[in-house]
């Protein structure tokens, strides 16, 4: 099956800093989703982005399907951005990466 790898595994930022999270996948995808898991365990949809670029406020994502990677950008980070960020692929049966644990300090 597909391999989904995320980096970095951990990231600590000061409030206001920018960051880039990466997701590499080993095969072509019809589905690439980014999620934020909040401290209560809820998976929040950030982006559905099998290709191209999308933006939503301070967050944006780019997937380069031909090179099999996706990037999640967080600008002007806030303490409420803390949590685990997951990417998942490739279609109906999602394979999740191990996640990036983001800590934003005030």
């Amino acid at each position, binding site marked *: 099956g597909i391999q989904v790898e995320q980096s970095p595994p951990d990231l600590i930022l000061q409030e206001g800093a920018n960051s880039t999270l990466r997701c590499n996948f080993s095969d072509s995808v*019809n*589905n690439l*989703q980014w*999620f934020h898991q909040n401290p*209560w*365990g*809820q*998976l929040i*949809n950030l982006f*559905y982005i*099998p290709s191209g670029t999308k933006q939503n406020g301070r967050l944006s994502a780019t997937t380069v399907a031909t090179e099999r990677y996706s990037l999640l950008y967080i600008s002007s980070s806030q303490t409420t951005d803390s949590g685990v960020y*997951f990417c*998942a692929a490739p*279609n*109906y*049966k*999602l*394979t*999740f990466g*191990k*996640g990036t644990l983001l800590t934003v300090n005030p």
Partner: protein
Amino acid sequence: GAGVSQSPSNKVTEKGKDVELRCDPISGHTALYWYRQSLGQGLEFLIYFQGNSAPDKSGLPSDRFSAERTGGSVSTLTIQRTQQEDSAVYLCASSLGFEQYFGPGTRLTVT
């Protein structure tokens, strides 16, 4: 509109007992999925229902696990003769196309 709901939110059971976990998908979504999240294994796919088609059970870890979906809507995941390694958060998701939306999960603790 209402999101995916799951019940109970927490379940503590004794080893060897059977448990049932319930999922109510988003209204109108034709596909329903079960995943589980555990410390050792991360997030894993369990089973997938699409309309009236036979479910994809390829992720179920053993024959103690089963699931059904009634009337194309509500789903129940049943774990028979629970073991300690079944302790995890069980997540349900639903979708109309590829994009999946997750419920809050059921935390299962087997003592």
